[in-house]
């Protein structure tokens, strides 16, 4: 058997194992070790175990993962994110589709704190969707708004997915965070523009609400949520001006969220324990995939699969655009059953060498990859975010209805994606402006 055949069979068997519910990290790791053993010898495979896990620990970039996870869990479990939807509602209610716009805004804020798309969708579905349905919003619009806005989670920094991408692409986490900022806001604005236009053209989608909030109520709402945006701007500002590293930013963010919660009297031993537990478990589960991916990266390099694919693509005269299209198709398919972090880590060992051989900007490419991962979260037949919302709402709304609403958002995402691909400046403007 040639090395290439071993490489491709290994990939196939790994995917099969993942489909059979084997932990993603285990499926990648075990098959890759076997593959390395076949291509070289068993000593090399054992040697990989000696070299890989421990060296990853020594990698400073990875230390940012537990710190940002902790910041996110602290913010949510001490209630800093509570009231977000209510506050945005107070400000946006009177616009056409105001509650939907409020959901997009609240999701964007929530997403920047928690950094996970699925968690954002899950949290918002329990509060924003019932409120919209109560005001007789179209079911498809209400649910799809939350499903799609949830996807802002990984694009708006800080984001765990970006740290992991940076780890593998060997790019700066800080630059990647900054690069995601404008595309994240742009995605949200395009969603909002679509909602306003649709509701203007078809007012029955979202009944207008006449409640007028007084100035006092607005001030109270702003007072309720101000710590979160301020915290995020401090964390991101510090990274932007290179005042501190991402890991330091995460640690500062987590500590400050505890201090803020203390003064708001919402810091309990229970909430601290809970967020610590969630963080270590989250870190451990990500780390197992990372180890698997590192084995896979070595296995792929040895087998020559990425070079083979790169030569194939280049010989067709295809450039970065067709590669992005290929990645999009791949994510649409694999995104049906693998969640974003797993999907990213599963595919990077093949995609990154390709991107490198085409000479594309890895920061820009990273943001495109994140956006593609996000779109895969809401595309039928199995968009993970859609299922999360369906799970939260039960029989209240059918899957079909949600997907019907989601198509509009996918269309908007495609527009955003095209803009990002055609105008790399949108992505690269902030990172190029950064200090240092």
């Amino acid at each position, binding site marked *: 058997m040639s090395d290439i055949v071993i490489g491709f069979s290994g990939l196939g068997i790994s995917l099969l*194992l993942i*489909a*059979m*519910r*084997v*932990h993603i*990290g*285990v*499926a990648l790791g*075990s098959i890759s*070790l076997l593959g390395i053993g076949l291509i070289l010898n068993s000593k090399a495979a054992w040697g990989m*175990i*000696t070299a890989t*896990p*421990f060296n990853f*620990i*020594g990698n*400073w970039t990875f*230390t940012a993962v*537990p710190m940002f996870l*902790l910041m996110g869990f602290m913010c*949510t*479990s001490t209630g800093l*994110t*509570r009231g977000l*939807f209510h506050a945005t509602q107070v400000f946006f209610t009177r616009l056409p589709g105001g509650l939907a716009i409020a959901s997009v805004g609240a999701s964007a804020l*929530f997403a920047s704190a*928690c950094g996970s798309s699925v*968690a954002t969708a*899950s*949290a*918002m579905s*329990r*509060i924003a969707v019932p409120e919209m349905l109560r005001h007789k919003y179209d079911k498809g619009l209400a649910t799809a708004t939350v499903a799609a806005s949830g996807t802002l989670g990984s694009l708006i920094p800080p984001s765990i997915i970006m740290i992991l991408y940076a780890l593998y692409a060997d790019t700066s986490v800080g630059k990647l965070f900054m690069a995601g900022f404008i595309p994240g806001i742009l995605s949200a604005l395009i969603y909002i523009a679509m909602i306003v236009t649709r509701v203007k053209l078809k007012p029955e989608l979202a009944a207008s609400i006449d409640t007028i909030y007084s100035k006092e109520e607005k001030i109270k709402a702003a007072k309720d949520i101000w710590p979160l945006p301020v915290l995020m701007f401090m964390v991101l500002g510090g990274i932007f001006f290179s005042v501190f590293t991402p*890991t*330091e930013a995460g*640690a*500062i963010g*987590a*500590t400050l969220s505890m201090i803020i919660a203390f003064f708001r009297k919402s810091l309990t031993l229970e909430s601290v*324990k809970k967020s*610590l*537990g*969630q*963080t*270590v*478990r989250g*870190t*451990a*589960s990500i*780390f*197992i995939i990372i180890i698997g991916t590192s084995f896979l990266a070595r296995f792929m390099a040895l087998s020559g699969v990425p070079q083979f694919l790169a030569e194939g693509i280049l010989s067709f005269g295809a450039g970065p655009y067709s590669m992005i299209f290929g990645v999009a198709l791949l994510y649409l398919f694999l995104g*049906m*059953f*693998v*969640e974003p*972090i*797993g999907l990213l880590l599963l595919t990077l060992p093949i995609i990154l060498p390709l991107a490198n051989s085409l000479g594309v900007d890895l920061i820009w490419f990273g943001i495109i990859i994140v956006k593609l991962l996000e779109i895969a979260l809401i595309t039928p037949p*199995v968009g993970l975010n859609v299922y999360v919302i369906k*799970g939260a709402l039960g029989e209240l709304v059918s899957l079909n209805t949600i997907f019907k609403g989601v198509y509009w958002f996918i269309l908007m995402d495609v527009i955003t994606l095209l803009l990002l691909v055609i105008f790399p400046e949108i992505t690269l403007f902030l990172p190029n402006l950064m200090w240092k």
Partner: protein
Amino acid sequence: MKFIEKLINFSAHLSCVVLMIMMLHVFFDVSFKFLFNSPIIATLSIVSYYYMVFVVFLPLGKTEIVHEHVYADVITRLFPEKLQFMFYIFASLISLIYFLCLGYQTFLDAVRAYQVSETYMANFVFYVWPSRWFLPIGFFTMAIAIIYNIKKAFLTKKVLYQKSDMEDLI
């Protein structure tokens, strides 16, 4: 069973404590850097070589017990329960072998590192051999947790899934 639960919970709690210390250590390092222009010495090495091994490897077992390792069950859920159960046992056995292998090799490495008192080159001598031990400890805890879950699955004759704890996020 009780003893295993205690052991796994203890290692998870220990990692929580270290995570908290890590957060404060980095926070004070940055604060001292700005306030007094004197950062805490060797923060970088201590964080990556000591704290991180606690945070990453000790919770492995607990994560398995509560089914929070990342897996995809969209496809297996389409099958009848009996088959789902078989998939689950099959997947668990593969994990078990994998983690026993990782544990075995990293154990040998830890012994070797201990014998030569492995250090990491910094501005000063920094011993890394103690952290090497956390790899086999973590991987073997994971293996124990997998066996625990398999036994539980056989006792209840059911596939166990992760419980969602997203309810009170907002």
